[in-house]
């Protein structure tokens, strides 16, 4: 983990933590390869693979045609036969043209072969509304993947998780959908030295009144909401939807008696509903108020910045929702 230990004390950008995570993975294991559109000499359209082609060569960092069905499927085939590919799907919206290798191959082949096949592949992708990218470049589709048994779903919200969870995903023997948020790429933070394992949620901020469960980019909005008051928010960053660390969530809700779930993805049928249901099933008698969700309303993401702002859950709405829970009971 050279990039973690060699990192200067100055804050690291999220995007560079990703580069470092991939560099560490390529360094520690010869079977790791990067596959994707412009990940090679171009360094990735967001510079997430910058310098890796020069450092590790064209056999480890492979440029592809714009042909996701072939190269995502080939990454799965390569994972079945001894490589550990990190394959980049440039925008999460593009999974629509290459779902079969993820949905029907990677997720199921270990199971269907009773464990004879192992599929250690990382599907790296990014999402992020709020930058006028339009309805086909803004979707957070993590619930799709969390709904398919056999896939891990990881959403790093912090700089250190961008590095640590990426490395953990590559080391994982299972297919992992690794979802970044491009609004986080320029954010800065410290790289940790003692990574929290994949599958563990993190209490990003301790509080007493309302438990706020979130992941990905929404973490920043929730932290900003906590600063607005007046409710004291305990913010849980899930870090991964699969595995889902309900122990940390339940422990927090037992103390606060109130739960607000915040995500950038569309609220209807989103992952928040699953968490709400589980908390309802297990802590019904301990809840002081009904569980509340705050996600994007069920409309395609519009182009207009004003319309986007009208839809995306922001700190102000999160603070208001938390406050209303506090007033309710």
């Amino acid at each position: 983990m050279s990039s973690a230990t060699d990192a200067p004390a100055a804050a690291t950008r999220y995007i560079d933590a990703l580069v470092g995570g991939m560099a560490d993975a390529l360094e520690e294991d010869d079977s790791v390869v990067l596959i994707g559109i412009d990940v090679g000499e171009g360094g990735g359209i967001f510079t997430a693979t910058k310098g890796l082609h020069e450092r590790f060569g064209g056999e480890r960092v492979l440029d592809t045609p714009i042909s996701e069905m072939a190269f995502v499927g080939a990454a799965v085939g390569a994972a079945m036969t001894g490589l550990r590919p990190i394959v980049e799907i440039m925008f999460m919206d593009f999974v629509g043209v290459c779902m079969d290798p993820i949905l029907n191959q990677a997720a199921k082949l270990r199971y269907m072969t009773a464990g004879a096949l192992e599929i250690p592949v990382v599907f790296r992708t990014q999402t992020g509304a709020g930058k006028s990218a339009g309805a086909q470049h803004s979707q957070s589709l993590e619930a799709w993947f969390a709904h398919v048994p056999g896939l891990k779903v990881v959403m790093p919200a912090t700089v250190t998780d961008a590095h640590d969870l990426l490395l953990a995903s590559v080391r994982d023997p299972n297919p992992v959908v690794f979802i970044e948020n491009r609004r986080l790429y320029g954010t800065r933070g410290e790289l940790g030295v003692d990574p929290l394992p994949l599958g563990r949620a993190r209490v990003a901020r301790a509080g007493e009144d309302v438990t706020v469960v979130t992941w990905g980019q929404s973490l920043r909005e929730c932290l900003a909401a906590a600063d607005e008051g007046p409710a004291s928010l305990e913010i849980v960053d899930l870090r991964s939807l699969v595995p889902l660390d309900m122990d940390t969530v339940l422990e927090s809700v037992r103390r606060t008696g109130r739960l607000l779930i915040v995500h950038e993805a569309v609220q209807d049928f989103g992952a928040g509903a699953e968490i709400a249901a589980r908390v309802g099933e297990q802590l019904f008698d301990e809840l002081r108020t009904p569980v509340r969700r705050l996600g994007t309303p069920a409309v395609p993401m519009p182009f207009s910045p004003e319309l986007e702002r009208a839809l995306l859950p922001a700190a102000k709405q999160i603070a208001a929702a938390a406050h209303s829970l506090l007033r309710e009971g």
Partner: protein
Amino acid sequence: MTTRSTVPEGHIDEGLPARELFATMALIRAFETSVAELYRAGEIPGFVHTSLGQEAVAAGVCAALREDDYMATTHRGHGHCLAKGVDVSGMMAELFARAEGVCGGKGGSMHVADPARGVLGANAIVGASLPLAVGAGLSSKLRAQGRVAVAFFGEGAVNQGAFHESVNLAAIWNLPVLLVCENNIYAEFSDSRRMTRVPSVVERSAGHGVGGRVVHGNDVEAVYAATRESVERCRAGGGPLLIEAETYRWHGHYEGDAQPYKPEEESAAWRDRDPLAVHGRRLVERGDATAEELEAVEAKQRDRVDAAIERARSLPTPEPEEAFAHVFGD
């Protein structure tokens, strides 16, 4: 770029495993015949797609492969798996959904796999074998293993994007991938010649810069010879190649399909080109075997399949908790 390949009359290739090819086809024939009967009798659950009539492609291709070569196949994959060396008894147990099936009863007819023999699996998604084989070819090339990856697919898959994208990727990466199209004319219920303006599969791969040849898919020696030459070129770093094997499925798309869409004279003509009969006659004419010897081979393979069926019937079904195993690895 495109050539038509047949084995000249009386041609005896040195080292040609002529009798083994017959034995493999006889095994597939016995297996598929029994499976169709067992399915009708309700002993095998799920869906079953048999390859009766297409035995020469499976036997001819797989005989030209190394044990460690990779192979990915289709929903009609029993023959390919048997020819690549998957245990007959384990496969039959799998079709019976038994705990000792090659996939623990969790895969079934459409998902037989055996990585130890390079078999990456039958696959229930049309065209899915292609990108997976490209990935296996990439593994082999990057790790300098000299293993060839074979993708079996039908001509129905050639209208899928997965075919065109995979052929292109294998071509630009110059991968050791052999694409074997079993052109059995029908894509499910539909005549494939009506589904494209370019029914020739080799022409379509040629459009991506990948050479190919058409072989008489019911002539096992022609398939074997074409595959051996193609595999040598792939293994030597020549990049991907395609074989279009013209053949015919005797049964329907699935067991139970009455096939009203097939002209009777067409079916009859292809029955006359029964791959076992074609090859059997040749063996006898060449003096490689007597008719009695071939009958004995067929009887022996039927006995193997019968024994596999008896064993499968006697085996336990999976314990209920097995449903929860193997979703994730540690």
